[in-house]
């Protein structure tokens, strides 16, 4: 019977057409066009490529020679480690703690999550003030603890730390909520059985919570790694153009830099292709490390 209603296939086209048209025009076509663009010569944003580069792979050859590409890739990989360990790790610790307390669960959920709602641009401005050299919040706190020298948080060497800390901080709550939801789905009976057998809190966490959360942790890790490739707003607000001395580029900000600042649009396209390739490789790697299991 169920198949009867949907035997007449004509409405399908009407239902699907708007969404598919949109995605074809704004997603699939530009995606392929971008790959083509990366082999062309484009002088200005908005202009079509006139001729192919000579040799046609010139942009990709350039990538290997460009030291900033390696800096950007290195920084992005570091960003991934930070998001994996910092975001998912801290979120895991907080989630296990919140799961084991009685009161205030909802409060902590609300408070931990809210930085995600705020735009990364506004947070960039906020952290610019917090990390200000001349008496920003951090330097004032350090001063109160008796540190006499001010730290220039945007200087070379420490700039990466200053950039990654807010990015990490913002999304801890996101993974926290996912993990807490995962912990809530674990049946209480398992914990009760463990309690009867005399398991300590730590043993319950180690032998029940973490194994049963395996798939959720896997999802979080994939999200954290692919998310690290998409980071743009906050680093660009705090450290535009790879300041200082082009040491803080991420793959995304470097792509924007070439597209909009140096007007090397075809090189920007090639960098965008690099981001896609990195994304595919890295999510495969993460997936094979945390292979989903059925318990």
């Amino acid at each position, binding site marked *: 019977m169920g198949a009867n209603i949907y035997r007449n296939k004509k409405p399908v086209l009407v239902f699907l057409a708007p969404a598919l048209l949109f995605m074809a025009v*704004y997603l699939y076509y530009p995606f392929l066009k971008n790959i083509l663009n990366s082999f062309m010569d484009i002088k200005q944003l908005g202009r079509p490529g006139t001729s192919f580069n000579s040799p046609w792979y010139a942009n990709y050859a350039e990538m290997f020679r460009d030291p900033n590409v390696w800096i950007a890739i290195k920084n992005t990989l570091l960003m991934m480690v930070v998001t994996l360990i910092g975001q998912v790790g801290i979120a895991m610790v907080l989630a296990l703690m919140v799961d084991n307390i009685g009161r205030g669960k909802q409060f902590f959920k609300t408070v931990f999550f809210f930085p995600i709602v705020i735009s990364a641009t506004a947070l960039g401005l906020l952290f*610019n003030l917090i990390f200000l050299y001349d008496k920003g919040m951090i330097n004032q706190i350090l001063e109160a603890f008796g540190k006499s020298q001010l730290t220039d948080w945007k200087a070379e060497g420490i700039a990466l730390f200053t950039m990654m800390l807010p990015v990490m901080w913002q999304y801890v709550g996101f993974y926290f909520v996912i993990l807490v939801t995962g912990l809530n789905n674990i049946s209480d009976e398992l914990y009760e059985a463990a309690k009867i057998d005399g398991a300590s809190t730590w043993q319950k966490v180690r032998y029940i919570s973490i194994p049963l959360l395996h798939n959720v942790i896997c999802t979080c890790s994939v999200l954290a790694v692919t998310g690290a490739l998409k980071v743009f707003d906050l680093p660009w607000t705090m450290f535009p153009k790879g300041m200082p001395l082009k040491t803080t580029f991420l793959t995304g900000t470097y792509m924007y830099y070439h597209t909009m600042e140096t007007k090397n649009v075809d090189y920007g396209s090639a960098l965008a292709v690099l981001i896609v390739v990195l994304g595919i490789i890295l999510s495969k790697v993460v997936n094979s490390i945390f292979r989903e299991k059925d318990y």
Partner: protein
Amino acid sequence: MTKKEKSTIGRSLVYLILIIWSMTTVYPIIWVVQNSFKAKDKILADSFSLPFGELFTFANYRKAFGNLNILGAYKNSIFISAMVALFVILFAGMGAYALSRYRFFGSQALHSLIIAGMMFPVFATIIPVFSMEFAWGIASTNSWFLTMLSVILPQVAGNLSFAMVVLIGYIKGLPIELEEAAYMEGCNAFQIYFKVVLPLTKPSFATVAIFSFLWSYNDLFTQMFFMRRPDMYGITMLLNQLTAKEGTNYGLMASAVTLVIVPVIIVYCFLQKYIIKGMTAGAVKG
């Protein structure tokens, strides 16, 4: 030490750590709000004191409303985000319904194509999208409506695949018997969708709408490509330009950040349940 004492200490320690993390998320906001009420040269002297008595001033806010087009930027951002959310739920809802109920040639392939659409980073599509809109005469114009449209269209496309994945998951879980009943009464497919499926899918639509709205509202990257004239800036673009131009006027920065953050926090307090669900839906395959 008895077992009970031990667990009390452990519990207090857990609460202490949780409260410390809460402080890291809450205090920076309080800090920036309190400093936005101080004169720009007094902010840095002692940024932890509350702005009472002589310290208190509205100067930063007068400057913010005077020099910056904050209300205009709000209007632009809210218009864009509302349109994005509206078109996403309209198109994604219809598409998701067709894909969850009809079996046709290529429906499996189409499903994979939509999931693949979620993986396309905006970096990989933005340059051709800009060229395309430029060729159509939508991008880089002086018209307010066209500028808004040039931001709305790519953002709708960027949210569609995610929205469809969430909605397909939900619609597949709805009991088909209701649709059969409607069919027996003589409804056609469109009536079934709008009168039976749509009302039942409301919670999931809310999730998708909130996600799309917030994503669009907070996005800077697309705005940086398509917004050229200051009177057409959205909120994030306005803030970004503010750092470039007035990066040392800390009072103005603090008041601008406050003006942008506080309304969002107020909305968040009222709708937090739905917002948290909306933002994490993609991950938990809701």
